[in-house]
């Protein structure tokens, strides 16, 4: 332990009571709040998916009205994307970026507090629509007009919730950029940054570029509904498809906003448990940057069926296919990191390997649907549902969960229960495949997405899918138990925690002092990521 840390311990008095959390400007506390909020939202969104799977368990309508089913589909997506995935990513960033780059805190601590505390209010607005005339949003999370304009009293709440979420994300992104650009410890050059920090800088720039576009789009919806404009109404000279272009110009970079932090996490985990430096650090940075750059030129592949000119379809097909190249580079780099390493398979490593396998499956189906003529068949079927759930659940969520297991001993000072962690991994992995793999089959065989009931030939697979869904949902309760158990006690963690761990965060005590790196550490090649 360095002298700086001992010095911190001396002044380590925390504020107490509810005020510690309400008025917090401490990156660790705010990180914790983000993560807890994300976990709660993960279960709120998860409960909605359980309603969906219960209704689809057998043909016929058993439990809910189709309109409520549509609300479940819509709000499940909004809650998971904006309430679970993004806050979880920001939570990890808050906790880890300052202690990875040797900064005492985030650059803008008060804004950090505000960007978190906007979230509960935004989701109160969004979820309150369930109790309003006309119900909760039911037009899909993509909010396509004219359908979304049919929503009743909940409509302005939806729009303002999205505005608030956007403001929160943009502030979070500004904070991360300001922190990394200004507060790196001496010697922590850009090309010595841990890859998790790199993926988050790139994510932050994506957020700043993409979120205002979404805000603009939903504002145009608002004025179309209440102020007589006709941006998306052909009768007034507008075009409903223009909204789709605006939405997906945000929506596609959003995919990478979600996935890049997870890539960053597994880029920390794999070298640690392979006991070997990350392969191709420089090409990883460039591949991540090129994925982010390309993500602004492929949006229309989400809407091939709207009827674009041939030249447009060809452009977006080629651009989409080209993303496979940098994505492939990343996968190969991770494989090469494992190659000839000395691997052990603690829970974080298991989740990281899970990401490698199952994200690749999502990547393969993504490549297939990038081929425009074939996408005319795949579009809006369960094949698409299978694809993006493979990318999001075993791709992104497994990455985040891996990160939680990886850093939990650092955060709490206690080791988690390895047996339960491994059990959680295996239950999740088996159930997630039972849940999502057969969706490829029913999608190809012709089952459209977003339907509450289906023709009987799809009954057998849907049965199996629902069982997988319930099993996956229940398995996640194990994660909560492991985290609670770890917070309450357990075998004491060392400072380094993992045998192969390198980087500044592992030089701090476990748990780290409330205020860390008040005197910046000196970083050399030897103490950097590798």
């Amino acid at each position, binding site marked *: 332990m360095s002298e700086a840390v001992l010095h911190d311990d001396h002044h380590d008095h925390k504020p107490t009571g509810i005020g510690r959390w309400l008025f917090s400007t401490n990156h660790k506390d705010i990180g914790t709040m983000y993560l807890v909020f994300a976990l709660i939202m993960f279960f709120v969104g998860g409960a909605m998916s359980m309603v969906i799977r219960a209704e689809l368990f057998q043909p016929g309508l058993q439990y809910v009205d189709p309109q409520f089913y549509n609300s479940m589909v819509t709000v499940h997506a909004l809650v998971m994307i904006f309430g679970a995935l993004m806050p979880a990513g920001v939570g990890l960033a808050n906790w880890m970026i300052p202690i990875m780059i040797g900064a005492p805190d985030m650059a803008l601590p008060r804004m950090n507090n505000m960007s978190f505390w906007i979230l509960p209010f935004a989701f109160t607005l969004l979820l309150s629509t369930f109790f309003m005339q*006309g119900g909760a949003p039911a037009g899909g999370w993509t909010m396509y007009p004219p359908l979304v304009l049919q929503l009743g009293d909940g409509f302005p709440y939806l729009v303002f919730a999205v505005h608030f979420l956007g403001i929160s994300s943009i502030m979070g992104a500004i904070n991360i950029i300001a922190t990394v650009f200004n507060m790196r410890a001496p010697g922590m050059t850009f090309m010595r940054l841990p890859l998790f920090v790199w993926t988050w800088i790139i994510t932050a720039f994506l957020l700043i570029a993409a979120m205002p576009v979404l805000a603009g789009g939903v504002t145009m919806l608002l004025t179309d509904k209440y102020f007589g404009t006709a941006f998306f109404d052909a009768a007034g000279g507008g*075009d409903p498809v223009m909204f789709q272009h605006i939405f997906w110009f945000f929506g596609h970079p959003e995919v990478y906003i979600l996935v890049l932090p997870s890539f960053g996490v597994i880029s920390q985990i794999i070298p640690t448990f392979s006991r070997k430096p990350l392969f191709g650090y420089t090409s990883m940075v460039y591949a991540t940057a090129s994925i982010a750059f390309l993500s602004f030129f492929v949006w229309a592949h989400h809407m091939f069926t709207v*009827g674009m000119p*041939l030249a447009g379809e060809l452009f977006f097909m080629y651009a989409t296919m080209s993303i496979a190249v940098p994505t492939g580079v990343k996968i190969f780099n991770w494989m090469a990191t494992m190659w000839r390493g*000395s691997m052990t398979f603690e829970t974080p490593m298991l989740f990281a390997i899970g990401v490698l396998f199952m994200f690749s499956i999502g990547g393969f189906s993504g490549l297939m649907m990038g081929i425009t003529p074939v996408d*005319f068949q795949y579009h809006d079927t369960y094949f698409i549902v299978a694809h993006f759930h493979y990318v999001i659940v075993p791709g992104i969520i497994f990455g985040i969960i891996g990160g939680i297991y990886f850093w939990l001993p650092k955060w709490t000072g206690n080791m988690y229960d390895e047996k339960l962690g491994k059990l959680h991994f295996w239950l999740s992995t088996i159930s997630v495949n039972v849940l999502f*793999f057969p969706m490829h089959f029913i999608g190809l065989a012709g089952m459209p997405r977003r*339907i509450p009931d289906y023709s009987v030939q799809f009954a057998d697979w849907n049965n199996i899918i629902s069982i997988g869904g319930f099993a996956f949902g229940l398995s996640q309760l194990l994660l909560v138990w492991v985290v609670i158990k770890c917070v309450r006690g357990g075998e004491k963690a060392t400072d380094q925690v993992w045998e192969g761990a390198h980087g500044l965060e592992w030089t701090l005590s476990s748990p780290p002092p409330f205020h860390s790196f008040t005197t910046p550490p000196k970083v050399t090649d030897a103490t950097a990521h590798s």
Partner: protein
Amino acid sequence: MFVNKFKQIMFAISVFSLMFISEMALADYMNVLNLTKGVTPTSKMVYGLHMQILYIVTAIGVVVFSVMCWSIYHHRKSKGAVAEQFHHSTSAEITWTVIPIIILVVMAIPATKALVFMEQTGDAEMTVKVTGYQWKWKYDYLDEGISFFSSLSQDSNEARQRNSGIDPETVENYLMDVDNRVVLPINTKIRILTTAADVIHDWWVPALGWKRDAIPGFINDNWTYIEEPGVYRGKCAELCGRDHGFMPIVVEAVPKAEYAVWVEEQKAIQLAAAAGADREWTKDELLEKGKDVYATNCAACHMAEGQGVEGLFPALVGSAIVNNPDASEMIMLILNGKNMMPAFKDILNDADISAAMTHERNSWGNTVKDVIQPSDVKAMR
């Protein structure tokens, strides 16, 4: 030779993995696995492309996952592996950048050809305009002047109501059958225009090989050339509101001669319907017709017994508008729509609307019990 062998191996692998997933009635599952080959040149081209890409990505997957598994097995600490410390290799990095690029180019060439082929909408011998409504389809045969709506068939509609007590397995073509089929001639290049009246829908018959959005205010053009007679079923593919899952499409492809007979029949039916709108109807006639019109057009939201859905769709039972002795507000509402209620002026004719209104005003304990004539509706248009 090699390709065939390769395909056989791939097929064996997929069958084998399926057997792991389920030992139960395998045949049931095997029918619901893959894209249909379809019955048009387009659909066959798309199917070929799909299989080609599927084999390529499966092959890549097998290679990549094998290498990973090999590494995970051999390079583990418990087997005494000692970590090497290399962290880059220019030749390896160039290799795994260039090879994917080559594979992508190989995939892009046939894909481009297929796309160019699919976009050739010229030289059509006939044109059908498809209009999406919440939640049914309207078909206009532009050359013949035939026009009709196509909605979910009555038996499916009854069975799909929540807690209907009817087992979907007992309903023939559950959710995949309609009252009026789209009849099309085979071996004819048909232009299909898609558009919509309210929100965006998407017209999709998998056997034809494509789907295309139906967008209000815009017209998309597509084409098809059906090679085999038969009945081909599809569905709306774009979320379009509450009953998005309940607006199927049924295409019946018939030989040209049979198609000509069907066209004449349809023309006669349309003439008869037009005549009905101008005469005086009896209450019994209106009530009988009204029951059908209500079931097809109104019951989806206002429910079979007019009870509505709380918080979403108003009840018609005891409704102030329905029970108002002055029917004009009700007629205007039906003609022009309001919020989620679609405008029915282009969907239903005067006789349909007057019949449905008469049914509503005489049913479920509503008190007006009067008769609305088609002429009453006509006067309000």
